[in-house]
């Protein structure tokens, strides 16, 4: 299975994914299933629509007073004996975690699924520093054994067959493991249980952090989030600054829509509210609690064109409904965050130049806006990115010339009509079965994977003109 490394152009990565028969089947099954589950969950939940609007309004209100809420969060976490760190860049975030690991003499770190730690490539840094990172979400564990990256925000190993997983386990554990999900899950439980009990460091992300109470909120189905925050001596949580919510009352609004959007559950199995290190009287829990607040391009978007993307809950609903994601899966996007929202987050983290191809990997159909629990207008921002990519001349010369020519044609009716007539002549040899097929040269890029409707024998404009002459419109 390919990783879709960035050395290969997007077009090629996407092409490879579309020729991968297993991936195609897995994507179809998974995305259809999640779409169905999400729809059922909201059909049974009449107040859902209003809650989505409320959730969005809370995110917006939090952003408008982000400094205040972060200050509250910091004060509450410190008041409970936790420490807060500030990371502008991924390098800084990694250095903070490595420093904690070094100071506490940590040899092994257990992690619960966290996109923020993926985003800063923490595992490589830990390994280089002699700390063994162990991913404990089953999907992430599989991905780690395979040395790959997640291909879906919610189901990271969506692209793997049980046979492939069995082979990975067999190699890692040096004993034959049956290709049965039940058996594989049991094996992973035993294997990872040992790690939970041995590890010195627990590393998590945060789905939310409640400013008022200093609470880091983790949402999981497996229970690894609870393990990681209960058993090791030290807990480090890494979160983007936009994850803060003001109060517990606000948190409940998000919990009511997050799992429904992600997996169709009313709530995920475990919602874990962590408030600092072990308290007096507690038998278990970490002695140290650290919260790392991560910028990595987010702060610049408070007043930037991608501001809306700061409301994202990372539920993955926009991936499942996206006709492009459904075809190419997560790896072809080539970055930490796949799918429609992933394009925006990649641009946020790495700048618009990093998405010069990806900005076009969308049909702008708007299915993502409908699915998004906080109604982020992804197509609007994608169009903005396309414009920026064009204005800053990041796009290829061929593409820019093509769009300049098209633009010139569309604003000149005489030329446009002429082009239509010309096109009708030129298309003749290529029209088969009601569609233009197998165009030559660069135009073939379009028709290779799609049908192009031919120019009609009589265009709408021509028919309209006729009607007008006959006085019938």
């Amino acid at each position: 299975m390919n990783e879709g490394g960035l050395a290969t152009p997007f077009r090629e990565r996407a092409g490879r994914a579309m020729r991968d028969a297993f991936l195609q089947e897995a994507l179809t099954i998974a995305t259809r299933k999640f779409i169905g589950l999400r729809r059922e969950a909201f059909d049974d939940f009449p107040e859902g629509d209003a809650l989505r609007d409320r959730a969005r309004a809370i995110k917006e209100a939090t952003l408008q007073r982000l400094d205040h809420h972060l200050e509250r969060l910091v004060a509450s976490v410190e008041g409970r004996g936790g420490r807060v760190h500030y990371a502008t860049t991924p390098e800084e975030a990694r250095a903070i975690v490595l420093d904690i690991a070094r100071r506490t003499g940590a040899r092994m770190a257990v992690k619960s699924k966290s996109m923020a730690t993926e985003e800063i490539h923490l595992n490589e840094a830990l390994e280089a520093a002699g700390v063994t990172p162990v991913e404990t979400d089953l999907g992430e564990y599989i991905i780690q054994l395979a040395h790959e990256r997640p291909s879906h925000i919610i189901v990271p190993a969506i692209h793997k067959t049980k046979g492939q997983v069995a082979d990975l386990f067999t190699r890692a554990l040096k004993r034959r493991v049956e290709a049965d999900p039940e058996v594989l899950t049991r094996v992973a439980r035993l294997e990872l249980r040992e790690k939970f009990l041995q590890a010195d460091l627990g590393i998590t992300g945060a789905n939310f952090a409640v400013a008022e109470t200093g609470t880091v909120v983790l949402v999981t189905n497996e229970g690894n989030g609870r393990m990681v925050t209960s058993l090791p001596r030290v807990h480090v949580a890494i979160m983007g600054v936009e994850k803060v919510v003001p109060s517990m009352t606000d948190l409940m609004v998000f919990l009511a829509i997050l799992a429904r959007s992600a997996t169709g559950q009313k709530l995920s199995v475990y919602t874990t509210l962590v408030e600092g290190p072990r308290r007096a009287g507690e038998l278990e829990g970490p002695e140290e609690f650290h919260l790392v607040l991560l910028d990595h391009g987010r702060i610049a978007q408070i007043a930037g064109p991608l501001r809306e993307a700061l409301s994202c809950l990372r539920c993955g609903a926009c991936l499942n409904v996206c006709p492009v994601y459904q075809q190419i899966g997560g790896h072809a996007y080539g970055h930490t965050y796949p799918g429609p929202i992933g394009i925006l987050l990649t641009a946020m983290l790495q700048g618009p130049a990093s998405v010069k191809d990806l900005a076009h990997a969308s049909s702008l159909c708007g299915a993502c806006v409908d699915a998004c629990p906080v109604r982020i207008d992804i197509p609007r921002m994608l169009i903005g990115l396309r414009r920026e990519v064009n204005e800053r001349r990041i796009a290829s010369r061929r593409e820019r010339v093509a769009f300049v020519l098209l633009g010139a044609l569309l604003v000149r009716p005489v030329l446009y009509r002429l082009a239509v007539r010309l096109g009708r002549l030129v298309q003749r040899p290529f029209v088969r079965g009601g569609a233009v097929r197998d165009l030559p040269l660069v135009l073939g890029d379009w028709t290779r994977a799609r049908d192009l409707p031919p120019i009609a024998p009589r265009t709408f404009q021509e028919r309209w003109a006729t009607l007008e002459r006959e006085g019938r419109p």
Partner: protein
Amino acid sequence: MTTRAEFLARIRAEMQKTQGLFAASTAPRPAQPRAAVEAIRRELAERWPETLERFRREFGRVGGVFHRAAALAEVPHLVAGIAREREAHRLVAWHPAALGGDLGPALTARGLDVLPMPPGELAEAAERQALRARIAEAELGLTGVDLAIAETGTLVVRSGAGRPRSTSLLPPYHVAVFDRGALVESLAQAGVVLEAWHAAGAPPAGAVVSFITGPSRTADIELTLTRGVHGPREVHAIFVDAETRG
């Protein structure tokens, strides 16, 4: 390294550039959370049977197993039945003060190997380590419940003295005992209770609140649902008709 002052200054600088484009408002919080909780309790005192029925239905939907007992004294019999069917013997239980009663002798009399949790923390690291090893071997975990949310079939448990986090997490079978005092109707009501738990002057508690909605599950391999990946593979809730707590 970025300091807190630098970090916040950059955020403020960006905030000044924009008013924000979209409708903005936070959720209205209860002004007097403890009074609001009392109001919820009074309201539920009338119609708790419906709330319990809704909880039972939703808890079953998420894969939980519901039981009912007339009094706390009947609980050991139910727990022993659950253990017997699963050929499980080793049980860890919250401290009697946290559980609302000492069920140890009755459970032991029914053939269970009971490990009660200490009332508070253990000072000696070696002692803690030894206890943890025994907890890790347990097959059943017996806990109380702080909130039972009917809307979602969720059990909420707070960590604290005598109520370790691992009791509801490490054993493959989790049995939770609750009464009508724990029932709330919805997530929104649970939010009011959470506000009260965090209000100034609230009694001290542990550092973790766990929402548990059914058994541990995953669908990470070919979307095949499997249970008990890290947490318990079964969750049982025993509702006790006679109130177990004040």
